[in-house]
């Protein structure tokens, strides 16, 4: 069986045609931000930066979930793993992220029961099989992941798993875009909007930000043709001076998004303000458990106090996430900070800009 919609969207002659067209149309110096970490990796993997003309700069925005997770949340994961008879379950990327003192990986090496899961589904099953232990799921993610965490909580509830709880660091994309547009010194001429976040939110979710800031915005898929097509639209809008909100990922994204997923998400969670690493507190940009589900809130269950902690000295992750610096402009990059010895989260996650720069440049 072939990979459906993959080969077609990697077609070399179509890609060459799009690059040629972009080079023909693009005159202005523009800075485009890809908001999603999966875009960042795809752009590097397919060598898209190298085929674009020099007047187009691609910036990696705050779309790598691990990279924007506040240090105090990482510290909380470490603390959960130190509680007796507790199993911490988490996505793989989080295991190496440094908190202020330790990482989940280090705690595991010291004997803590930390398990990497592919889905919250697996975490619920671990709770079912280990009723004599507490199971905490540590989850970070955007709109794509939040409904899956909500579904996991509902699953645990329907199975009466009182030994299951979650500590989430849920983040919402549109408020972060608005916060970026309001930040000092920001120069962004267009957003390459995240494909799979948009599968859930739908195109309509960006309309408010788009109308307020009048900025070219194109929802894109993840294959080379998808990304080049979106870049072409952003270039055309910049050249003609007519910003638009375009859905260029119609095979997966609708205007309203996935209504069922949104319903489950809103059943379990409610909007709150939350702290983004590097960006600080952004109002209405997170989602916390509704009161009805507080029994599943790990921080409440274990009565955990989560003080704010300063971010590592010299790490420029915050400015990188805002497109104000490139990884090479961080004094620690490739010196003290490497994928083997990461200092900030942008070097830990495979989707982080620093890690992507390190791997591909």
């Amino acid at each position, binding site marked *: *069986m*072939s*990979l*459906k*919609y*993959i080969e*077609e*969207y990697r*077609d070399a002659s*179509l890609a060459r*045609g*799009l690059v*040629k*067209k972009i080079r*023909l149309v693009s005159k202005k110096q523009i800075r485009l931000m890809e908001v*999603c*970490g*999966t875009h960042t990796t*795809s752009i590097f993997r397919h060598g898209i930066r190298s085929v674009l003309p020099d007047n187009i700069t691609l910036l990696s925005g705050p779309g790598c*979930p691990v990279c924007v997770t506040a240090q105090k949340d990482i510290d909380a994961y470490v603390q959960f793993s130190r509680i007796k008879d507790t199993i911490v379950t988490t*996505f793989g*990327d989080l295991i190496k992220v440094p908190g202020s003192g330790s990482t989940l990986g280090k705690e595991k090496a010291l004997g803590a029961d930390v398990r990497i899961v*592919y*889905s*919250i*589904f*697996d975490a619920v099953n671990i709770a079912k099989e280990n009723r004599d232990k507490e199971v905490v799921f540590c989850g970070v*993610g955007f709109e*794509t*992941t939040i*409904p*899956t965490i909500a*579904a996991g909580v*509902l*699953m645990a509830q329907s199975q009466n798993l009182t030994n299951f709880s979650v500590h989430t660091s849920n983040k919402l994309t549109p408020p972060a875009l608005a916060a970026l547009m309001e930040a000092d010194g920001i120069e962004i001429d267009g957003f390459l909007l995240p*494909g*799979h976040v948009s*599968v*859930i939110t739908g195109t309509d979710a960006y309309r408010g930000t788009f109308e307020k800031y009048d900025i070219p915005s194109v929802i894109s*898929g*993840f*294959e080379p*043709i998808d990304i080049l*097509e979106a870049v072409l639209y952003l270039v055309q809008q910049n050249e003609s001076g007519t910003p638009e909100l375009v859905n*260029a990922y*119609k*095979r*997966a*994204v609708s205007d309203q998004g*996935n*209504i*069922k*997923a949104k319903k*489950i998400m809103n059943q379990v969670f409610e909007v709150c303000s939350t702290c983004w690493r590097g960006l600080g507190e952004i109002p209405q940009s997170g989602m916390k458990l509704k009161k009805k589900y507080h029994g599943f809130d790990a921080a409440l269950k274990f009565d955990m106090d989560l003080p704010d902690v300063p971010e590592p000295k010299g790490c420029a992750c915050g400015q990188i996430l805002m497109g104000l610096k490139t990884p090479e402009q961080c004094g620690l990059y490739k010196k003290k900070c490497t994928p083997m010895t990461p200092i900030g989260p942008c070097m830990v996650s495979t*989707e982080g800009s620093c890690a992507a720069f390190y791997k591909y440049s």
Partner: protein
Amino acid sequence: MCLAVPSRIIEINDTIARVDVDGVVRETSLMLLDDPKIGEYVIVHAGFAINKVDEKAALQTLQDMRNILAAENAGDNGLINQQ
């Protein structure tokens, strides 16, 4: 975090499906999907099918782009011929 490759539903048991991605079969929850059917392509994220892939739209996008580029090439040739 995202698996951008569409997976094909090959079996449905209540809210769990078996999906195939290029010969690799995995289990995926259907809790977030409306009206899934065997044979349909879905996008899977963290163990959940989050949407179907619209076949018509997929083909239409490719065709639209070919049309834009074909018009462009025709224009190029015209220009060259005039010179």
